[in-house]
């Protein structure tokens, strides 16, 4: 297997100011993915440091969601390597169900199990995958629900929760497995504007608690205040990356400028 770090150091746009040294939490190298004749990712190299929040921006169809979904192999990459704290995620012989427990994922459409209560949405994997007893699983689920401020909704079914609450339960479901990295795939895009704040607040809390996060989103304000690094993707590759002040304040690439002026309406 090739060493993905070699590819990373060759990347001229690699961040100068990524926090923490040592082994990255998540390393993506030379990631390629096509759907039929359409190339969606053409060589992505990205290393996310422990506790870093990397915010991914880009027009629709730029490949940002696909990149995220390759990280836990909901999408199978055509080539390239992904390492989680040095453990291969890609390649033959990977225990996918084991590695996925270490990578939490939050979806645009929440994807809560509608037939289960909030509590059972969280305990399912704890019981069936981790093999915890009912009492242990419930204790940890209540803890996770408390973290997202919804301990009082544990007995509710998803249909009885607002969109924002559902998304927070979905975050709790991922958090309960104590993942090393969290992937967010447009977590607030399906929410009414007044419900977005609660979800972002939970994400801010996770960030301050030291969670490593890879966030695909259009919440620019959140990126400005919470992201350590912003990545701009277009046409299946990373066009530009850097600290939020620079990407939003002085983007180097024309494509980044065009995109930002479109989304900010400027």
């Amino acid at each position, binding site marked *: 297997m090739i060493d993905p770090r070699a590819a990373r150091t060759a990347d001229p746009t690699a961040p100068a100011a990524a926090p923490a040294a040592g082994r990255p939490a998540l390393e993506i190298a030379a990631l390629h993915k096509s759907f039929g004749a359409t190339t969606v990712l053409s060589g992505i190299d990205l290393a996310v440091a422990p506790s870093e929040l990397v915010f991914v921006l880009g027009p629709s169809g730029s490949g940002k969601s696909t990149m995220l979904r390759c990280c836990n192999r909901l999408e199978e990459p055509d080539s390239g390597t992904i390492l989680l704290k040095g453990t291969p995620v890609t390649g033959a012989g990977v225990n996918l169900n084991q590695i996925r427990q270490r990578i939490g994922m939050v979806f645009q459409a929440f994807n809560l199990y509608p037939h289960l209560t909030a509590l059972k949405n969280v305990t*399912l*994997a704890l019981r069936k995958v981790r093999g915890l007893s009912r009492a242990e699983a419930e204790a940890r689920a209540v803890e996770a629900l408390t973290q997202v401020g919804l301990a009082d909704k544990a007995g509710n079914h998803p249909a009885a929760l607002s969109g924002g609450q559902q998304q927070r339960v*979905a975050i709790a479901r991922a958090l309960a497995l104590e993942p090393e990295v969290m992937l967010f795939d447009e977590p607030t895009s399906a929410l009414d504007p007044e419900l977005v704040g609660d979800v972002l607040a939970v994400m801010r809390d996770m960030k301050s608690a030291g969670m490593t996060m890879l966030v695909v989103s259009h919440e620019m304000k959140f990126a400005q205040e919470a992201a350590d690094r912003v990545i701009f993707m277009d046409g299946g590759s990373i066009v530009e990356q850097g600290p939020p002040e620079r990407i939003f304040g002085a983007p180097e690439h024309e494509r980044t400028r065009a995109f930002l002026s479109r989304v900010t309406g400027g």
Partner: protein
Amino acid sequence: MTPLERFLDTFFNAAVLAKYAPAILQGVWVTVELSVLIVLSGIALGGLLACVRAYRVRLLSFGIVIFADIFRALPPLVLILIVYFGLPNAGIFLSSFVVLYAILTLILAAFAEEILWAGITSVAKGQWEAARSTGLGFTQALLWVVLPQAVRLAIPPLTNRAIAITKMTALGTVIGVPDILNQATTAQSFSGNASPLMLAAVAYVLLFMPFVVLSRWLESRFAWRKV
């Protein structure tokens, strides 16, 4: 005899009713026994086949589709007659009870498989993804996340189909299964009076009405608001 008296004597003759009620009650027991066995094993087999099909192993799926299509297309009576009167020539002797049970179970399984498969495929892809992203395996995601939702979607068509198939136990009459209808037609030819058939009709209504009501209750019980 006035026409009305004659009508009542034909269909509601008290003496005939009293005489043959015990025989028909025996038939009720046979029908109940058959119905319960058929519904349990037919739905279980259909569910198993639908789950197997979820793994999308081409050859297995192909076999299941062929099975389901044939057993849904053929009239049950044709199958019953072929098996009951054909197999003995091949040296296989099965009781009429076993033949009726096996054929109706397979037919129900064919319909149940299609209904549950439709349920499985209509569960949103995101449900699979959410389950798999937490480390659940394919089988676990199927059993704990997808199947429970598929079953809820399948309950109304499944109960209708179960009621329809249990009513077909009356077909056992033609191969001599001593069910309600068989007892009634025997009684009718001995007595020369249609009252036993009326009694059979009443027995069927009493027997199946609770299931029809139950199916309504199940439909409301398992429905949940779609988000």
